């Protein structure tokens, strides 16, 4: 059974979103997603300072099997990326919610946060 932390928000394409105290958000892929992907071998992240809109394809995770797009869960600006993933992409498998985070954003439309799934709703989606 996949780990779906209660304190995070989710979108159905298997990204998780953590709201930080300073109003920014941190984004990665869920435990369920990394299980589906298998060993991650390469992560391509967006450039810092890029403005993105909800549902833009902004990153790519490549596993031994295939490439998967990562979508922006919110509109806003990329303010940081996890550069450690370049040399250690397998961190996405070993620590999807902590060391395996992918990028941080400053949301431009905070109201979009209401559209995100909570842990229960996401769990229901992946159980189907």
């Amino acid at each position: 059974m996949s780990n779906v932390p209660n304190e995070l928000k989710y979108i159905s394409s298997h990204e998780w979103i953590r709201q930080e105290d300073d109003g920014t958000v941190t984004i990665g892929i869920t435990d369920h997603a990394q299980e589906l992907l298998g060993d991650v071998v390469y992560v391509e992240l967006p450039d810092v300072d890029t403005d993105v809109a909800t549902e833009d394809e902004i990153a790519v995770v490549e596993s031994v099997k295939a490439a998967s797009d990562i979508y922006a869960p919110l509109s806003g600006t990329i303010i940081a990326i996890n550069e450690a993933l370049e040399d250690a992409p397998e961190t996405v498998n070993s620590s999807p919610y902590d060391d395996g985070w992918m990028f941080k954003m400053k949301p431009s439309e905070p109201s979009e946060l209401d559209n995100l799934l909570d842990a229960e709703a996401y769990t229901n989606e992946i159980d189907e």
Partner: protein
Amino acid sequence: MGKQTSLFECHQQAGAKIVDFGGWDMPLNYGSQIEEHHSVRQDAGMFDVSHMTIVEVTGDDAKSYLRFLLANDVDKLKVSGKALYSGMLNENGGVIDDLIVYYIDETNYRVVVNASTREKDLAWMAQQAENFSVSIAENNGYAMIAVQGPNAIEKTNSVLSDTQKAAVEGLGVFVAADTEGYFIARTGYTGEDGYEIMVPVAEAASFWNKLVEAGVAPCGLGARDTLRLEAGMNLYGNDMDENVSPLEANMGWTISWQPEERDFIGKQALLDQKQAGVKNKLVGLVLEGKGVIRAHMKVIAEGVGEGETTSGTMSPTLKKSIGMARIPKEAGEQVMLEIRGKLVPAKVVKPCFVRKGEALV
């Protein structure tokens, strides 16, 4: 649910992730396919390859039949147990399948073909047998386990009986020993030393478990693919198929042109291709920029033309992305790959990246 091999329960108990492969429920991995890959490069790993099809070709004309059926020449085989790799071609010179044929004696040959091509292979073999005194029969009595890696032979020998051990002592490369119902061949699909073992179905699970106890790591199809690709070995359906000539699939070495008087299916088409000039070649690629090579990416050889990747992965041994591509014959050492809309440089190499644990590129 697909077909299951006699080792299916072993896979389930080991927590394998099961996927469909050519109608068979097969293990993709048992956790991490990268760790499985390293087991084979550094120690010993094993694969259930029981889904592959064993075909017994027997009869007075067995030899003349196979000399007509296959592009390689079974007349090279003189020692019982000796194996030969060959393409089985259609009249146009396209590859129906690649296979291994073992010589037992002049009237007995054992052929191992791919799982995904089983039906069409058997149909083709039967069709071509019409004018020969030969019987073509599938043998379902065996499971097949490939044990591969620098310690594969030693670890396997430790679970064999004394008689079996004596039978495989000093076994040559590409030779099999038929001993106490086991058919043990020094062959493989990983670029490492090891065996491919046909085991009586009833003993398959217990033999598998003995190998586990001897320290051989179960490996799935995922690792099998990255290992064969590092070794530069073709995968049927990816790197060649019925519409591809062996001359454009790095299989020229498997075509036996001598003796000239031997006719084989596809020969005239291959001669015509050579006459007209072979247009493409299958090469290895090492990605020099970021990303991962996958099958069906566009390859651009500047000033020459375009081609396409046929296989690709991130090499666990080299920690670089490698692949195979069919590109114009005149292409040089440097090409560009179109990866997700971006052009990324790649180096063209001989398609053999890793052998016996050593990087070759």
